[in-house]
């Protein structure tokens, strides 16, 4: 009986303590942030969205290779000799036209792994977090700033130059091959001549040696 009363007393006491805490919070301050009116201040290094400073990109493909989910797509075309693409702000020379630099943010898992290998620090996370879309394809961001016509032109140019280079290389190879052939022939000739001479001289040497 006494036990039962004690138990109920403890129950009531713990309930009242709990109610005391909740009523204190009732009159306390709330922690809610009224979202569209007030916005949370994200730290500078918040990882919310990938951004590429395309002017600094040298098309090295390191980020795409570092991505665990393969959400970065890069196509490059080597620049032709008549165009100087300039240098990045970090001083690396640019050697490629970036015909395509797409990031599928629907696939991205914000792991930050692509940021670190970049030699020119041109790919990084920004703290912009409101970019929902109604259509999934809108989440594929195109960073390349080349016009389609330009892309075609560049591609053609590059192809031409590549063909030219190939041709040159082939010519060189041919020349080299010819030269080598000539040399071989000459060498053969010389060797034959030598041989002819040697045939006569050798025995005399031997003879000398023997004697």
């Amino acid at each position, binding site marked *: 009986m006494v036990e039962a009363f004690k138990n109920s007393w403890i129950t009531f006491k*713990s309930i009242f*303590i709990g109610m005391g*805490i909740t009523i204190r*919070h009732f009159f306390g301050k709330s922690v809610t942030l009224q979202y569209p009116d007030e916005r949370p201040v994200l730290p500078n290094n*918040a990882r919310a969205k990938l951004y590429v400073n395309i002017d600094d990109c040298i098309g090295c493909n390191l980020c795409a290779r570092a991505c665990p989910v393969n959400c970065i797509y890069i196509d490059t075309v080597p620049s032709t000799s008549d165009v100087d693409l300039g240098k990045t702000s970090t001083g690396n020379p640019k050697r490629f036209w970036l015909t395509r630099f797409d990031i599928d943010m629907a696939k991205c898992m914000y792991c930050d792994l692509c940021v670190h290998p970049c030699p020119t620090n041109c790919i990084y996370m920004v703290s912009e977090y409101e970019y929902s879309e109604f259509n999934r394809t809108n989440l594929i961001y195109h960073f390349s700033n080349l016009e389609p016509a330009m892309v075609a032109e560049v591609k053609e140019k590059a192809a031409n130059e590549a063909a030219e280079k190939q041709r040159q290389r082939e010519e060189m190879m041919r020349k080299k091959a010819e030269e080598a052939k000539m040399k071989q022939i000459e060498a053969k000739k010389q060797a034959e001549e030598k041989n002819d001479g040697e045939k006569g001289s050798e025995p005399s040497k031997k003879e000398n040696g023997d004697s």
Partner: protein
Amino acid sequence: MIEAITDSGERREMTINMGPQHPSTHGVLRLELVLDGEVVKHVKPHIGYLHRCFEKYAEQMDDYAKVIPYTDRMDYVSAMNQEHGYVLAVERMLELEVPERVEYIRVIMAELQRIASHLLGIGAFGLDLGAFTPFLYLFIEREKILDIFEKASGARLLYNYMAVAGLMRDVHPEFKDEVADFVKTFRPKIKELDDLLSYNKIFVRRTANIGVLPVKVALNYAASGPVLRGSGFKWDLRKNDPYSIYDRFDFDIPVGSGEMGSLGDCWDRYIVRVKEMEQSLRIIEQALDGMPDEGDVMAAIPKRIRPKEGELYVRTESPRGELGYYIVSDKSASPFRVKARAPSFVHLSMLPAISKGALIADIVAIVGSIDIVLGEVDR
């Protein structure tokens, strides 16, 4: 079902599916309950609804570092601890030494994460028993930890902060002050939690003597972490098999005492978590004192991580228990096999053993008290 009640005389059992969409299964877990009235005769957990082939993905990555973001997603409530275990395993494989400062930051992060994870676990446990308010009070505190993480790593939940041989980036300059501040403001909140929930008589009556797990059964099931400690077994990998720099810190291992009911019941498992948060605070304080202010956060390693051929099993104490990584390397750049031994997986497998004869409400309490995260169970 209609036969079950129109049938007069004989008792008939009712099979009921709890989950995969149920408010208190902590994710997509399905429990097949065989009921006699409200008494549970058998429980059969069905898992796999959240299976994302972590191990297969790990094998297909061409870099050991690329696995780290996936480890985050295993136990998404304690991502830092998951990373910690994995990078430790790879570092041991490579026989690497990491800078002092890195070790300290890792420990602080891991302990903060442990607190954050316990806050969620405790809160959700209260929520399962119908106490909504403590859950949100604890979330306020958890947010503060996440703010610190966000400033350091840039992300709030899946950090990818620890890298093999170091950290992805250095902590922000005011990191130490913020953590110290958090430790100071958090201590009184534990007292408030005790008053509001832990020693509330209704809560105690709901949890004491429920889901009793004897030590012998716990060891046979390889239970670990708070579940094992709740059964009164003093076992903590941070003390018993020290990794990182845990041997430098002075802290206690709280164990269940059967204070409110029998040893190893839900309340014991719960209170172990509450007490563990205090111990984590102690570790954080000591680590803050010992942490060097300056220093590199990355050891020199080759660009491509290629461990020698071999294998090892490394275990760490995650908030839920022993988190093991079994890594097999075949000398190539991608791991031959990564197996994660998830504590929740093991703990969930003992659910049938400890919940015989319980009521439906007790099943909810037991599942809450072993604090499973389905992302880790299914991987």
